[in-house]
Protein backbone atom coordinates (compact mmCIF):
# COMPACT_ATOMS: atom_id res chain seq x y z
CA UNK A 1 0.00 0.00 0.00
CA UNK A 2 2.02 2.92 -1.23
CA UNK A 3 -0.58 5.38 -2.45
CA UNK A 4 -0.83 8.72 -0.69
CA UNK A 5 -4.62 8.49 -0.71
CA UNK A 6 -4.48 5.42 1.49
CA UNK A 7 -2.90 7.45 4.25
CA UNK A 8 -5.79 9.86 4.75
CA UNK A 9 -7.46 7.94 7.59
CA UNK A 10 -4.11 7.52 9.37
CA UNK A 11 -3.45 11.22 9.06
CA UNK A 12 -6.89 12.10 10.40
CA UNK A 13 -6.41 9.95 13.50
CA UNK A 14 -2.90 11.30 14.07
CA UNK A 15 -1.07 8.04 13.35
CA UNK A 16 1.25 9.46 10.69
CA UNK A 17 4.50 10.85 11.97
CA UNK A 18 7.61 12.68 10.92
CA UNK A 19 8.46 12.68 7.26
CA UNK A 20 5.37 10.74 6.23
CA UNK A 21 3.16 13.24 7.97
CA UNK A 22 4.90 16.19 6.37
CA UNK A 23 4.76 14.53 2.95
CA UNK A 24 1.05 13.88 3.38
CA UNK A 25 0.39 17.46 4.44
CA UNK A 26 2.07 18.62 1.27
CA UNK A 27 -0.08 16.16 -0.65
CA UNK A 28 -3.20 17.60 1.01
CA UNK A 29 -2.36 21.00 -0.44
CA UNK A 30 -2.86 19.49 -3.88
CA UNK A 31 -5.54 16.85 -3.41
CA UNK A 32 -9.15 17.85 -2.89
CA UNK A 33 -10.25 14.23 -2.52
CA UNK A 34 -7.94 13.62 0.40
CA UNK A 35 -8.87 16.95 1.98
CA UNK A 36 -12.51 15.95 1.77
CA UNK A 37 -11.81 12.55 3.31
CA UNK A 38 -9.79 14.01 6.18
CA UNK A 39 -12.52 16.58 6.83
CA UNK A 40 -15.22 13.87 6.79
CA UNK A 41 -13.36 11.71 9.28
CA UNK A 42 -12.62 14.65 11.55
CA UNK A 43 -15.87 14.49 13.59
CA UNK A 44 -14.96 10.89 14.38
CA UNK A 45 -11.69 12.10 15.89
CA UNK A 46 -13.70 14.68 17.83
CA UNK A 47 -15.77 11.86 19.28
CA UNK A 48 -12.60 10.04 20.37
CA UNK A 49 -11.36 13.21 22.03
CA UNK A 50 -14.53 14.06 23.89
CA UNK A 51 -15.07 10.45 24.90
CA UNK A 52 -12.05 10.53 27.17
CA UNK A 53 -12.64 13.77 29.08
CA UNK A 54 -11.66 13.77 32.73
CA UNK A 55 -11.86 16.75 35.11
CA UNK A 56 -8.60 18.66 34.83
CA UNK A 57 -6.79 19.56 38.05
CA UNK A 58 -7.96 22.90 39.42
CA UNK A 59 -4.52 24.49 39.25
CA UNK A 60 -4.09 23.76 35.54
CA UNK A 61 -5.88 26.90 34.46
CA UNK A 62 -3.59 29.14 36.49
CA UNK A 63 -0.52 27.37 35.12
CA UNK A 64 -1.71 27.81 31.56
CA UNK A 65 -2.63 31.46 32.14
CA UNK A 66 0.78 32.16 33.66
CA UNK A 67 2.53 30.60 30.69
CA UNK A 68 0.36 32.52 28.22
CA UNK A 69 0.94 35.74 30.20
CA UNK A 70 4.61 35.36 29.54
CA UNK A 71 4.02 34.99 25.83
CA UNK A 72 1.35 37.61 25.41
CA UNK A 73 2.59 40.24 27.79
CA UNK A 74 5.05 42.74 26.45
CA UNK A 75 7.93 43.57 28.75
CA UNK A 76 9.71 46.48 27.18
CA UNK A 77 13.06 47.36 28.61
CA UNK A 78 15.61 50.04 28.02
CA UNK A 79 18.64 49.66 25.87
CA UNK A 80 21.24 50.34 28.51
CA UNK A 81 22.33 47.18 30.18
CA UNK A 82 25.32 46.11 32.16
CA UNK A 83 27.00 42.88 31.24
CA UNK A 84 25.71 39.89 33.18
CA UNK A 85 28.52 37.39 33.25
CA UNK A 86 27.42 33.78 33.56
CA UNK A 87 30.22 31.54 34.64
CA UNK A 88 32.69 31.01 31.86
CA UNK A 89 30.20 31.51 29.08
CA UNK A 90 29.79 34.54 26.91
CA UNK A 91 28.33 37.51 28.70
CA UNK A 92 24.66 38.15 28.14
CA UNK A 93 23.20 41.52 27.48
CA UNK A 94 19.65 42.65 27.83
CA UNK A 95 17.30 42.37 24.91
CA UNK A 96 16.53 45.60 23.14
CA UNK A 97 13.01 46.93 23.26
CA UNK A 98 10.68 46.49 20.34
CA UNK A 99 8.75 43.55 21.74
CA UNK A 100 5.73 45.66 22.66
CA UNK A 101 4.88 46.61 19.10
CA UNK A 102 5.17 43.04 17.96
CA UNK A 103 3.42 41.39 20.90
CA UNK A 104 0.55 40.28 18.72
CA UNK A 105 3.03 38.57 16.47
CA UNK A 106 5.21 37.05 19.13
CA UNK A 107 3.70 33.70 19.55
CA UNK A 108 6.18 31.92 21.69
CA UNK A 109 7.70 33.10 24.84
CA UNK A 110 10.29 35.74 25.17
CA UNK A 111 10.86 37.97 28.08
CA UNK A 112 13.33 40.65 28.78
CA UNK A 113 14.83 41.71 32.01
CA UNK A 114 16.07 44.86 33.63
CA UNK A 115 19.59 45.48 34.74
CA UNK A 116 20.63 43.33 37.64
CA UNK A 117 17.34 41.49 37.49
CA UNK A 118 17.86 38.57 39.77
CA UNK A 119 15.16 36.61 37.99
CA UNK A 120 16.90 36.91 34.64
CA UNK A 121 20.29 35.99 36.02
CA UNK A 122 18.95 33.04 37.93
CA UNK A 123 16.82 31.83 35.01
CA UNK A 124 19.88 31.77 32.81
CA UNK A 125 21.96 30.06 35.46
CA UNK A 126 19.21 27.48 35.92
CA UNK A 127 19.22 26.63 32.23
CA UNK A 128 22.97 26.22 32.20
CA UNK A 129 22.82 24.02 35.27
CA UNK A 130 20.03 21.77 34.02
CA UNK A 131 21.06 18.15 33.49
CA UNK A 132 19.68 18.25 29.95
CA UNK A 133 21.15 21.65 29.03
CA UNK A 134 22.07 21.65 25.38
CA UNK A 135 24.24 24.27 23.77
CA UNK A 136 24.28 25.20 20.12
CA UNK A 137 26.87 27.72 18.96
CA UNK A 138 27.61 29.38 15.70
CA UNK A 139 30.57 31.68 15.32
CA UNK A 140 31.04 34.24 12.60
CA UNK A 141 27.55 33.97 11.16
CA UNK A 142 25.62 36.81 9.54
CA UNK A 143 24.25 37.54 13.01
CA UNK A 144 27.64 37.55 14.67
CA UNK A 145 28.46 34.91 17.26
CA UNK A 146 25.25 33.24 18.31
CA UNK A 147 24.65 30.82 21.11
CA UNK A 148 21.49 29.08 22.18
CA UNK A 149 21.31 27.13 25.41
CA UNK A 150 18.14 25.29 26.27
CA UNK A 151 16.70 22.79 28.70
CA UNK A 152 13.50 20.94 27.92
CA UNK A 153 13.33 19.82 31.52
CA UNK A 154 13.02 23.44 32.57
CA UNK A 155 11.21 24.44 29.41
CA UNK A 156 13.50 27.42 28.91
CA UNK A 157 16.22 28.55 26.57
CA UNK A 158 18.51 31.52 26.23
CA UNK A 159 19.58 32.88 22.87
CA UNK A 160 22.51 35.24 23.09
CA UNK A 161 24.72 36.90 20.60
CA UNK A 162 27.80 39.06 20.40
CA UNK A 163 29.32 41.09 17.59
CA UNK A 164 25.87 41.40 16.10
CA UNK A 165 25.89 43.77 13.13
CA UNK A 166 23.54 46.74 13.38
CA UNK A 167 20.73 46.72 10.88
CA UNK A 168 19.64 49.51 8.59
CA UNK A 169 16.86 51.72 9.88
CA UNK A 170 13.38 50.24 9.83
CA UNK A 171 14.64 46.66 10.14
CA UNK A 172 14.92 44.27 13.06
CA UNK A 173 16.18 40.78 13.75
CA UNK A 174 13.51 38.19 14.48
CA UNK A 175 14.11 34.86 16.14
CA UNK A 176 12.09 31.82 15.07
CA UNK A 177 11.56 28.27 16.15
CA UNK A 178 10.64 26.12 13.17
CA UNK A 179 9.15 22.79 14.11
CA UNK A 180 6.89 20.31 12.38
CA UNK A 181 4.04 22.82 12.50
CA UNK A 182 6.02 25.60 10.87
CA UNK A 183 7.71 28.76 12.15
CA UNK A 184 6.75 30.40 15.44
CA UNK A 185 8.20 33.74 16.41
CA UNK A 186 10.35 33.79 19.53
CA UNK A 187 10.73 37.55 19.51
CA UNK A 188 12.68 40.45 18.17
CA UNK A 189 16.13 41.56 19.12
CA UNK A 190 18.65 44.18 18.22
CA UNK A 191 22.24 44.66 19.28
CA UNK A 192 23.02 47.12 22.01
CA UNK A 193 25.97 49.49 21.84
CA UNK A 194 28.39 46.62 22.41
CA UNK A 195 26.89 44.45 19.70
CA UNK A 196 25.27 42.08 22.16
CA UNK A 197 21.74 40.84 22.70
CA UNK A 198 19.87 38.14 24.55
CA UNK A 199 16.44 36.56 24.42
CA UNK A 200 15.00 34.18 27.00
CA UNK A 201 12.42 31.82 25.59
CA UNK A 202 10.11 29.36 27.28
CA UNK A 203 8.45 26.24 26.07
CA UNK A 204 10.01 23.09 24.88
CA UNK A 205 12.30 22.73 21.98
CA UNK A 206 11.50 19.49 20.35
CA UNK A 207 14.02 17.37 18.66
CA UNK A 208 14.19 18.19 15.01
CA UNK A 209 13.38 21.84 15.50
CA UNK A 210 15.36 24.54 13.76
CA UNK A 211 16.28 27.88 15.32
CA UNK A 212 16.35 30.67 12.79
CA UNK A 213 17.02 34.37 12.55
CA UNK A 214 15.70 36.58 9.78
CA UNK A 215 15.90 40.23 8.95
CA UNK A 216 12.37 41.65 9.14
CA UNK A 217 10.72 45.04 8.93
CA UNK A 218 10.60 46.92 12.23
CA UNK A 219 7.86 45.45 14.41
CA UNK A 220 8.47 41.96 13.11
CA UNK A 221 6.38 39.72 10.87
CA UNK A 222 3.82 36.95 11.23
CA UNK A 223 5.94 34.64 9.15
CA UNK A 224 9.55 34.88 8.06
CA UNK A 225 9.72 37.19 5.08
CA UNK A 226 13.22 38.57 5.08
CA UNK A 227 16.63 37.06 4.41
CA UNK A 228 17.54 34.08 6.58
CA UNK A 229 20.68 34.97 8.48
CA UNK A 230 20.98 31.90 10.64
CA UNK A 231 19.40 28.46 10.70
CA UNK A 232 20.58 25.97 13.25
CA UNK A 233 19.36 22.44 13.82
CA UNK A 234 18.57 21.80 17.45
Amino acid at each position, binding site marked *: MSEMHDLAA*FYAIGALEGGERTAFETHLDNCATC*RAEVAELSPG*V*EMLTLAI*AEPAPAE*LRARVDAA*VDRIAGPNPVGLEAPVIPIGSTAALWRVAAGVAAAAALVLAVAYTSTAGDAQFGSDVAAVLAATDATVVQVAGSDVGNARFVYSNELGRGVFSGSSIPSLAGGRTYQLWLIDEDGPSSLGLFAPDDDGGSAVVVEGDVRRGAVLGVTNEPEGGSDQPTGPVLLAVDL
Partner: protein
Amino acid sequence: MAGSLTTVSRADSSHALEDLLELVADGDRAAFALVYDKVADMVYGLARRVVVDRDLAADVAQEVLVDVWRKAHMFDRTRGTALAWIGVMTRRRAVDLVRSVEASRRRDTNHTAVPEPPDPVAEMIVESAERSAVQRAMGQLSDLQRESVELAFYGGLTHREVAERLAVPLGTVKTRIRDGLTRLSGAMEAFARE
Protein backbone atom coordinates in the same frame (compact mmCIF):
# COMPACT_ATOMS: atom_id res chain seq x y z
CA MET B 1 -3.62 44.20 18.45
CA ALA B 2 -1.02 43.64 21.10
CA GLY B 3 -2.48 41.03 23.44
CA SER B 4 -5.49 43.18 24.28
CA LEU B 5 -8.66 41.80 25.78
CA THR B 6 -11.57 42.32 23.46
CA THR B 7 -15.02 43.01 24.83
CA VAL B 8 -17.02 40.01 25.97
CA SER B 9 -19.53 40.39 23.18
CA ARG B 10 -16.92 39.36 20.66
CA ALA B 11 -16.26 36.04 22.31
CA ASP B 12 -18.97 34.13 24.08
CA SER B 13 -19.41 30.50 24.96
CA SER B 14 -22.03 29.91 22.30
CA HIS B 15 -19.38 30.48 19.67
CA ALA B 16 -18.05 27.44 17.91
CA LEU B 17 -14.56 26.41 18.87
CA GLU B 18 -13.42 27.23 15.33
CA ASP B 19 -14.60 30.82 15.70
CA LEU B 20 -13.02 31.15 19.13
CA LEU B 21 -9.69 29.97 17.71
CA GLU B 22 -9.87 32.72 15.13
CA LEU B 23 -10.19 35.24 17.92
CA VAL B 24 -7.40 33.56 19.87
CA ALA B 25 -5.18 33.94 16.80
CA ASP B 26 -5.72 37.69 17.15
CA GLY B 27 -4.55 37.62 20.75
CA ASP B 28 -7.98 37.56 22.41
CA ARG B 29 -7.47 36.27 25.98
CA ALA B 30 -11.19 36.21 26.69
CA ALA B 31 -11.69 33.87 23.75
CA PHE B 32 -8.80 31.75 24.97
CA ALA B 33 -10.42 31.47 28.41
CA LEU B 34 -13.55 30.14 26.69
CA VAL B 35 -11.46 27.68 24.68
CA TYR B 36 -9.97 26.48 27.95
CA ASP B 37 -13.47 26.02 29.41
CA LYS B 38 -14.51 23.93 26.46
CA VAL B 39 -11.47 21.69 25.97
CA ALA B 40 -9.31 21.49 29.10
CA ASP B 41 -10.99 18.36 30.47
CA MET B 42 -10.71 16.61 27.12
CA VAL B 43 -7.07 17.53 26.70
CA TYR B 44 -6.27 16.39 30.23
CA GLY B 45 -8.33 13.21 29.89
CA LEU B 46 -6.64 12.24 26.64
CA ALA B 47 -3.21 13.01 28.07
CA ARG B 48 -4.02 10.88 31.13
CA ARG B 49 -5.16 8.01 28.94
CA VAL B 50 -1.81 7.99 27.14
CA VAL B 51 0.72 8.86 29.86
CA VAL B 52 -1.27 7.59 32.88
CA ASP B 53 0.68 9.55 35.51
CA ARG B 54 -1.44 12.50 36.65
CA ASP B 55 1.42 14.96 37.00
CA LEU B 56 2.84 14.15 33.58
CA ALA B 57 -0.66 14.36 32.13
CA ALA B 58 -1.06 17.83 33.63
CA ASP B 59 2.30 18.83 32.11
CA VAL B 60 1.19 17.58 28.70
CA ALA B 61 -2.16 19.33 29.03
CA GLN B 62 -0.45 22.59 29.94
CA GLU B 63 1.87 22.39 26.94
CA VAL B 64 -0.96 21.57 24.56
CA LEU B 65 -3.13 24.42 25.81
CA VAL B 66 -0.22 26.85 25.52
CA ASP B 67 0.39 25.47 22.02
CA VAL B 68 -3.27 26.21 21.19
CA TRP B 69 -2.55 29.82 22.12
CA ARG B 70 0.68 29.92 20.16
CA LYS B 71 -0.54 28.09 17.07
CA ALA B 72 -4.18 29.13 16.77
CA HIS B 73 -3.26 30.98 13.59
CA MET B 74 -2.16 27.66 12.07
CA PHE B 75 -5.57 26.00 12.47
CA ASP B 76 -7.18 25.43 9.07
CA ARG B 77 -10.95 24.86 9.11
CA THR B 78 -10.88 23.16 5.75
CA ARG B 79 -8.70 20.40 7.16
CA GLY B 80 -11.04 19.29 9.94
CA THR B 81 -12.64 20.51 13.12
CA ALA B 82 -10.97 22.48 15.87
CA LEU B 83 -11.55 19.79 18.48
CA ALA B 84 -10.01 17.11 16.24
CA TRP B 85 -7.01 19.42 15.70
CA ILE B 86 -6.62 19.86 19.44
CA GLY B 87 -7.17 16.13 20.05
CA VAL B 88 -4.48 15.08 17.58
CA MET B 89 -2.10 17.72 19.01
CA THR B 90 -2.71 16.28 22.48
CA ARG B 91 -2.18 12.72 21.34
CA ARG B 92 1.11 13.69 19.72
CA ARG B 93 2.45 15.53 22.74
CA ALA B 94 1.48 12.71 25.06
CA VAL B 95 3.03 10.04 22.84
CA ASP B 96 6.27 12.06 22.49
CA LEU B 97 6.50 12.22 26.27
CA VAL B 98 5.88 8.52 26.73
CA ARG B 99 8.56 7.72 24.18
CA SER B 100 11.15 10.00 25.70
CA VAL B 101 10.44 8.62 29.18
CA GLU B 102 10.77 5.08 27.85
CA ALA B 103 13.94 5.99 25.99
CA SER B 104 15.62 7.37 29.08
CA ARG B 105 14.44 4.41 31.11
CA ARG B 106 16.02 2.10 28.53
CA ARG B 107 19.22 4.13 28.62
CA ASP B 108 19.33 4.04 32.39
CA THR B 109 18.63 0.39 32.93
CA ASN B 110 19.68 -1.25 29.67
CA HIS B 111 16.31 -2.89 29.77
CA THR B 112 14.32 -3.07 26.59
CA ALA B 113 10.75 -2.75 27.70
CA VAL B 114 8.07 -4.08 25.41
CA PRO B 115 5.28 -1.52 25.42
CA GLU B 116 2.22 -2.93 27.13
CA PRO B 117 -0.85 -3.04 24.98
CA PRO B 118 -3.22 -0.37 26.26
CA ASP B 119 -6.37 -1.45 28.05
CA PRO B 120 -9.49 -1.01 26.03
CA VAL B 121 -11.48 2.04 26.96
CA ALA B 122 -13.52 0.31 29.58
CA GLU B 123 -14.87 3.37 31.26
CA MET B 124 -15.35 6.78 29.78
CA ILE B 125 -15.71 9.61 32.22
CA VAL B 126 -17.71 12.32 30.55
CA GLU B 127 -20.53 14.61 31.45
CA SER B 128 -23.58 12.45 32.00
CA ALA B 129 -25.50 14.29 29.30
CA GLU B 130 -23.03 13.12 26.69
CA ARG B 131 -22.04 9.82 28.24
CA SER B 132 -24.72 7.62 26.77
CA ALA B 133 -24.33 9.19 23.34
CA VAL B 134 -20.60 8.56 23.36
CA GLN B 135 -20.92 5.03 24.72
CA ARG B 136 -23.55 4.28 22.10
CA ALA B 137 -21.25 5.61 19.40
CA MET B 138 -18.26 3.56 20.54
CA GLY B 139 -20.56 0.58 20.83
CA GLN B 140 -21.49 0.96 17.18
CA LEU B 141 -18.00 0.06 16.08
CA SER B 142 -17.16 -3.53 15.37
CA ASP B 143 -14.62 -5.05 17.74
CA LEU B 144 -11.96 -4.93 15.02
CA GLN B 145 -12.69 -1.30 14.23
CA ARG B 146 -12.65 -0.31 17.88
CA GLU B 147 -9.39 -2.16 18.45
CA SER B 148 -7.54 -0.43 15.60
CA VAL B 149 -8.97 2.98 16.41
CA GLU B 150 -8.00 2.64 20.06
CA LEU B 151 -4.47 1.45 19.31
CA ALA B 152 -3.88 4.28 16.85
CA PHE B 153 -5.42 7.07 18.90
CA TYR B 154 -5.27 6.24 22.59
CA GLY B 155 -2.41 3.79 22.24
CA GLY B 156 -0.33 6.27 20.28
CA LEU B 157 0.95 3.69 17.83
CA THR B 158 1.91 4.69 14.32
CA HIS B 159 -0.01 3.07 11.49
CA ARG B 160 2.78 0.56 10.90
CA GLU B 161 2.99 -0.28 14.58
CA VAL B 162 -0.74 -1.00 14.67
CA ALA B 163 -0.37 -3.34 11.69
CA GLU B 164 2.58 -5.07 13.36
CA ARG B 165 0.80 -5.40 16.69
CA LEU B 166 -2.26 -6.91 15.06
CA ALA B 167 -0.22 -8.90 12.51
CA VAL B 168 -2.41 -7.74 9.65
CA PRO B 169 -1.60 -5.82 6.46
CA LEU B 170 -1.53 -2.04 6.55
CA GLY B 171 -4.47 -1.93 4.13
CA THR B 172 -6.59 -3.86 6.61
CA VAL B 173 -5.77 -1.42 9.37
CA LYS B 174 -6.59 1.46 7.05
CA THR B 175 -10.02 0.04 6.30
CA ARG B 176 -10.82 -0.61 9.96
CA ILE B 177 -9.75 2.85 11.05
CA ARG B 178 -11.47 4.59 8.17
CA ASP B 179 -14.72 2.70 8.69
CA GLY B 180 -14.54 3.16 12.45
CA LEU B 181 -13.98 6.89 12.13
CA THR B 182 -16.77 7.13 9.56
CA ARG B 183 -19.22 5.54 12.00
CA LEU B 184 -18.04 7.80 14.80
CA SER B 185 -18.35 10.82 12.51
CA GLY B 186 -21.95 9.91 11.79
CA ALA B 187 -22.66 9.53 15.49
CA MET B 188 -20.93 12.83 16.25
CA GLU B 189 -23.00 14.69 13.72
CA ALA B 190 -26.22 13.14 15.00
CA PHE B 191 -25.18 14.04 18.54
CA ALA B 192 -24.38 17.62 17.59
CA ARG B 193 -27.84 18.03 16.14
CA GLU B 194 -29.57 16.99 19.36
